[in-house]
């Protein structure tokens, strides 16, 4: 996150339509207009529930806050198509449980947040960070960071 604060590079999401890039970013999932169930990543078409025959899903903002279900820390550079920085720095992956959506979403932690900083059950909030930089453009991805903001003021309702 610190890298982007001092950078003049323009920011674009590394994937379209999965998250917002504003001050209080949140994931964008899909919700069934008939039964109300959620799905992530966002998609169109049929409801994922076998009990529902709806074909209409709408984009919906997900809760910005959740709790750690589990986490891992990659100590070796993943293979392509991951674009690892050189030299490679270890980073954490965090699976966060969102209560309202009843869903666990896997994401990276921000640079510098490692396994030793995490615990199952910890409160986390959604942020964004640079995934990789190419031709002066920062390709951004959602990340799960330890919660610091006031959840009522900062949370996506």
């Amino acid at each position, binding site marked *: 996150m610190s890298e982007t604060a001092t950078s003049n590079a323009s920011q674009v999401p*590394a*994937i379209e339509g999965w998250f917002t890039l504003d001050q209080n970013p949140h994931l964008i999932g899909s919700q*069934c207009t008939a*039964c*109300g*169930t*959620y*799905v*992530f*990543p966002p998609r169109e078409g049929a409801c*994922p*529930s*076998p*009990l529902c025959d709806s074909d209409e899903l709408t984009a919906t903002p997900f809760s910005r806050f959740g709790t750690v*279900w*589990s*986490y*891992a*820390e*990659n*100590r*070796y*550079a*993943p*293979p*392509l*198509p*991951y*674009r*690892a920085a050189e030299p490679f720095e*270890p*980073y954490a*992956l965090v*699976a966060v449980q969102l209560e*309202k*959506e*009843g*869903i*666990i*979403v*896997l*994401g*990276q932690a921000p640079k510098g947040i*490692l*396994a030793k900083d995490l*615990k*199952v*059950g910890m409160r986390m909030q959604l942020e964004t960070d640079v*995934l990789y930089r190419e031709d002066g453009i920062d390709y951004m*991805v959602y990340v799960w960071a330890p919660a610091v903001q006031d959840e009522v003021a900062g949370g996506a309702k």
Partner: protein
Amino acid sequence: MSDRDLVVLGVGMHPWGKWGRDFTEYGMVAARAALKDAGIEWKDVQYVAGADTIRNGYPGFIAGATFAQKMGWTGARVSSSYAACASGAMSLQTARASILAGFCDVAMVIGADTTPKGFFAPVGGGDRKNDPDWLRFHLLGATNPAYFALFARRRMDLYGATSEDFAQVKVKNSLHGLNNPYARFRKENAVEDVLNSPVVSDPLRLLDICATSDGAAAMIVTSRAFAEKHLGSLKGVPRIKAVSTSTPTYPQTLLEMPDFATDSSAVVAPPARGFKDSICWDAYEEAGVGPEDLSMAEVYDLSTALELDWYEHLGLCAPGEAEGLLRSGATTIGGRIPVNPSGGLSCFGEAIPAQAIAQVCELVWQLRGQAEGRQIENAKLGITANQGLFGHGSSVIVGV
């Protein structure tokens, strides 16, 4: 024996290793070994059920025909099955269905693989933003060991499991596989060896995680009528009593490869049995047995910690008690319920389409009393448990 039992007449394997040769060469060795073990000839095989390997190009996608041609065309019927790591079990189920439906009496089930070094990465090039397997690498760098690490960390933070507990699984399996002629890694490991190996995806170390291997396994399965005619008596002959290849029931609440997220349980409550529990229990129900009837289990130890998860999915102990069961020695050969007597993936590494077949081969050798150097005394009934990408998994029950 039940009318729906399938007789295993022969099993064969090519040793696991890393040679980079054509996968059909390995398959041919395994096929010939299985035929010899069964005491039949290639021309007697009426149906070839191949397990696909997606890493070897188009001959891998049409595994049944590829192996049939390699052995020499005989006019046999073929099928090719893809179910990721459960492909071998799905091939067995295809052969089983064909035999039990009366379409044929003698089938060969076969799988072989040649694997690249290092992390498994998505197959094929180019940007594929609709492919979750491509995206999980691109956006997250979520390697297979990273998913294994999530499950290991759950055990640590929820149940107090330690790195020493995980290492103890490796120690046990390395002892089991020491004398297995088909195992790739035949070296005793101490707890310190594991703890001194580099961390790959915290909390898992190199020796906690299974390697990728070349290898091949095959079996000859037949109808009861054919086997009785061929052998005279079926006393002591291993039989397939159940094959489960169950998919999850919505909502799937475990975060599994290659997914970014679980299903939602906001509207539909999770099923009473989760995905990996149901793989095992569907097999128990089909065979009419329970965990208390088992002599042994071959489970998919993609990591040491995942072996502990399987103890619980199989009902060998309650959730949170796997470390205790391991420490008690119950899952070591000589204990109450030995797990991975072959040495498991820990000693083999993973040759994907061959692996679920190899698990059944080990049960067969154990049931016949032919598992030299790793024999479980008086083995009568065994189960396999296996998990793959994209909602695949399998469990096979074999008994005498």
